[in-house]
């Protein structure tokens, strides 16, 4: 009982302190911060929770500016062009972020107190190539890898692979049993290519620099061609099943839950949000091993793609905005917000979230082979749609491996030119 009274007392003290700090910096007036983001992103429960907590705790208001997902990038960039930059801006660290003139619009957050609380993976995701922290990651974190049906695999007398060679043998052995080794929905498979590219560029930052300066192309990197060749061979070997070219995102869940497919390249939170319930297999039947796509001998995992909250460096409410981020990064607050949410930790102090067994079981392997999402976020001109389009030509036999690599390059360069990237 004493402990409870003590916590209540401390909370009141903290609220008073925060209230007096904010009021002091804002001259005692309540401030309204503008926050821009995708509508669906801002409707996540942990986002609305932290917003409510902030307004209740500070008396400040958040003016939420949201746009539909499909028009977000275009509309937001138009607003920026008109000088309508919000105090807080939410965006993933991907190629589209280049539209928003990050150096001139946003404050680097390297010196904020809460940065020490970020996990290495989360921080790495939010840093630019120079190590500057662009925003506060505030999102469901996840580990992407090769999730497999362990129950099924055991029943077949098979074990997960630990090397690329073993993975190929495993696919071959699985194909012999009549099961589909890998669920590969051709029309929605961009992230799979993204996973494969991570090791090439994460392990070789000089390649990333060169390709972003347009000094080399994918075609100059043998590993890219090897990866495309592996995908083509896997398709030809029947490792993706029979009607995989007709499949998309919606097919992954039934195929995995029914056991028709044994493995797929996905992320752990997907099992909580998308795996259909009541089918033959549930989340308990699945386990994690690295993704093997011929770009890393021991496979790779990709860290989460995180939505960041970035601060307008030119905002008249800059201090309040930074205080808002600090409020969000407060252990007590984010544990309330992420209570019961299935996510890998973004903050070291996260305790109320649900960590996937699949991830924790392979913590050592993830530690050894995990890589920050690099391809999608760091390669200038990278576009998920373009990747799907280029591989679509390959899958439909309209082009060969070299042609597919060339298409990847062509689309990437075209997008970079469109963005006005330097060197293109």
């Amino acid at each position, binding site marked *: 009982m004493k402990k409870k009274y003590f916590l209540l007392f401390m909370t009141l003290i903290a609220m008073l302190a925060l209230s007096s700090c904010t009021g002091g910096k804002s001259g005692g007036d309540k401030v309204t911060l503008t926050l821009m983001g995708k509508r669906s992103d801002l409707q996540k429960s942990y986002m609305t929770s932290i917003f409510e907590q902030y307004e209740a705790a500070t008396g400040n208001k958040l003016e939420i500016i949201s746009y539909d997902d499909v028009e977000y990038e275009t509309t937001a960039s138009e607003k920026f062009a008109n000088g309508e930059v919000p105090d807080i801006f939410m965006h993933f660290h991907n190629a589209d972020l280049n539209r928003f003139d990050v150096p001139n619009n946003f404050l680097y957050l390297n010196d904020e107190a809460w940065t020490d609380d970020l996990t290495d993976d989360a921080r790495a995701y939010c840093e630019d190539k120079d190590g500057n922290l662009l925003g506060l990651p505030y999102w469901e974190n996840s580990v992407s890898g090769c999730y497999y049906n362990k129950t099924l695999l055991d029943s077949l*007398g*098979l074990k997960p692979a630990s090397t690329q*060679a073993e993975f190929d043998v495993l696919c071959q052995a699985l194909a012999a*049993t009549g099961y589909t080794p890998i669920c590969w929905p051709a029309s929605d498979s961009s992230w799979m290519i993204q996973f494969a590219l991570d090791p090439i560029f994460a392990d070789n930052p000089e390649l990333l620099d060169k390709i972003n300066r347009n000094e080399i192309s994918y075609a100059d990197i043998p590993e890219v061609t090897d990866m495309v060749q592996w995908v083509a061979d896997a398709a030809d070997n029947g490792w993706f099943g029979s009607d995989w070219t007709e499949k998309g995102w919606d097919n992954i869940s039934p195929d995995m839950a029914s056991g028709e497919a044994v493995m797929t390249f996905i992320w752990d939170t997907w099992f909580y949000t998308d795996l259909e319930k009541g089918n033959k297999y549930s989340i308990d039947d699945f386990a994690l091993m690295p993704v093997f796509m011929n770009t890393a001998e021991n496979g790779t995992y990709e860290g989460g793609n995180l939505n960041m909250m970035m601060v307008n460096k030119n905002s008249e409410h800059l201090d309040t905005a930074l205080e808002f981020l600090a409020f969000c990064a407060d252990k007590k607050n984010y544990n309330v917000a992420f209570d019961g949410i299935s996510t890998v930790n973004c903050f070291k102090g996260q305790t109320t979230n649900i960590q996937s067994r699949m991830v924790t079981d392979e913590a050592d392997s993830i530690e050894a082979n995990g890589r920050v999402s690099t391809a999608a976020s760091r390669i200038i001109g990278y576009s998920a749609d373009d990747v799907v389009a280029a591989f679509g030509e390959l899958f439909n036999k309209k082009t060969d491996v070299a042609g597919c690599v060339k298409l990847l390059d062509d689309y990437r360069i075209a997008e970079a030119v469109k963005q006005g990237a330097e060197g293109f």
Partner: protein
Amino acid sequence: MKKWVGKALLPFLMCMVGIAAVLIGIIYFDFISERIYEDSTDHLEEIYGQVNRSFGAFVERNWGLLDGWNDYIRLNSASPETVSGFIEKEHEYWGFSEFYFLSADETGMTIDGQRDKMDLGGAWNDLREHGEPVMAGDAVSESKDITVFAVPVEHGEYNGFGYDAVAVSYTNADMASSLNVDAFAGEGKCFVIHNDGSILLSTQTGGNVFGNYFMYLNAASDLDEQKLAKMRTDWENETTGLVQCKIGGVSHCILYQPVGYQDYILLSAVPQSVVSAGFLSVQKITMNVFIVIFLLLGAAVFALIVMRNRRQSRITRTELNYRERMFDVLSNNVDDIFIMLDSENQSVDYISPNIERLLGIPAAEVRENIRVIEKCAINFNVVIPKNVLEEIPLNGNKYWECEYMHQNTGERRWYRMTIYHMSIQDVKKYIVVMSDRTLEQQMNQKLQEALTAAQSANEAKSNFLSNMSHDIRTPMNAIVGFSVLLEKDADNAEKVREYTRKITASSHHLLSLINDVLDMSKIESGKTSLNVDRFNLPELLEELSIILMPQAKAKNQKLKIDGGQAPREYIIGDKLRLNQILINLLSNAVKYTPEGGKIEFIVRELPQTAQQYVNLQFVVRDNGIGMSEEFQKNVFAPFSREINSVTNKIQGTGLGMAITKNLVDLMGGIIRVKSKPGQGSTFTVELSFALAEQDDMQQPSNENDHNRPEPDENVMRGRRFLIAEDNELNAEILTEMLGMEGVICELAVNGEEAVKMFEKSEQGYYDMIFMDVQMPVMNGYEATRQIRSCGRPDAESVPIAAMTANTFAEDVRNAMDAGMNGHLAKPIDMDAVRKLASRLISGKESRSEKSE
């Protein structure tokens, strides 16, 4: 039958030989395959037996080494450095991963003092309880794919670590290399498994993903439960075995053999194709040799058959060519057409080439489509109706006749179409024979026409006789009747004159009828010829006017003759016949035009391209009673007279227009009629005449003739005439009639007598001679010629007139040619006699005066 057996025997034998060869081949290949399989599996067992022995030696060696090392360690346990150096050297030499001291609590310590928790599983019990050397997989808890070999030793201590066993560990990769399983091109998998299928180690290239191979075979192979159970039993009983199965559709050989330690089994899985690769190459070579021999033999037999068939087909083709050529030549020389049609689709298999000559259609066109013949057909559209073909039973036929017209010449031909439905070498065909029946058809037509003509002639004759009977009897009835009345009323002068007048009229009508009949008969029999000579057209018109004007005046009719549109004066033609035509037309106009009517006669010249000819049109138009349309169709037929109240009162023979038409035809002209009952008729005659030279047209003027005074009625009075007439009655009539005129007649009964009487007479004794033509002893022509040539002075000048029933123009001409001066037709018309006698006697006297 024998021929069939002979033909079928060779193919049958060849088929049997082929089947036998295939069967031998199959049996041979089965045998070879079985042998190869046995050899392959023997080979597999031999190789993996060697691998198993090597593995056993490897295990034994490790255990032996451990025993030896233990002795060395125990001796040098006081010097850890020495022991460490020793183990390090052994490590480098034998290639193991770690050396372990194993304590009683299953803890392992390496030579450098690092401790690991070991887990030897069931092997630990064998090691500790039974004191047996053991081999265990995954015994090091922190490392995967590690196999440990351990031997029990007396309790010892090293660096303060008490131990009861020593062990070495190997990674599976190292183990695999030591097992030396590179045979079968590295495609064989080799596992050391427990008897439950769980895997101790694998030689799988690239690593191992198999956890339990029994479970995998259960899931991925086509082995049924019975075979799987047998295999599992073999494993538990440490029995060697070999099974074949498909894994992922690929045939594999699964060989398992006990290692000889604990429950370990060495299991190898090798694709069948790899196992038998070497042997299969031998098999392939053997098969290829066999196939080549078989193919060569087959090729030789095939070549023989082909050559034989070619020779046979060449003979057949030559024979067919001969037949075809012969048939072509034959068909080219006959007027029959031959067609062969396929029974199924009616395509043309053969068409005789003469079809182009006979119907004007190229044979190639018919070959393309039989229906092209239909454009030659007359009066029917479908030459060979499909339903007709289908109605013809096999081996039956059907025929009909039809007429065709040549496409180019228009020549018509009759064909008898006969279609035979027959089977030729089991293929049903239609043979169409188009047999030429043109001559037969033409002959039939002629016969039919002749029959029709004969029937018409017979009918005409009947009609003629019927008409003649009627038309002759009518005036004869009047003559006979009035003759009876004349006898009865002989005393009544008034009635005698009346009866005599009616008898005379009837006689004239009868005479006219006879003249017309004879004229018609002569024209139709073709005996009429034209007497073509130059004549003066205006004169002819004048004469017509003289003849017809009185008749018209008698009926108070206006007769207008307009010859002004015919400027030609002299033309060449038969004046007499033209005169006859025009008189007939004009007489009819007068006759069938009521009193006070109007008659027009117009002569005009029609355009003519040839300068030496003139086309004249003669139009006779009246406003008389006209003719019905029906009658106009027969107006030129003999004895045709329209029967109505008016015509019944008008006498006529009904031959006039027929004669006129025949004369016009004879002169190459045309005659047309337009008429309406009650409005009159218009007859138009168009004739072509040659033009006469104007200079030569000077005819002896007959002006004098016109100006000649009418003969004196008494010119014959007191004259002496010689009458040559064989018919006593005619002679009497003439004598009596001339006597009434004051003529003294002397009669001769034939020509000879007439000549004699003239020669005996004095000079100028006879003033004139009337000479019958047809007489016995000597005819009139001969008698005239003899008189003229008798040498007497008056023989040349004495007038001689023919008096004959031969009344045609030829008769007149013959009379003139014989030397006669005139011609009188019987029966004797006294007016004509008077006129002739007056003209001849006056002429004679005139000439006599001039000569004097």
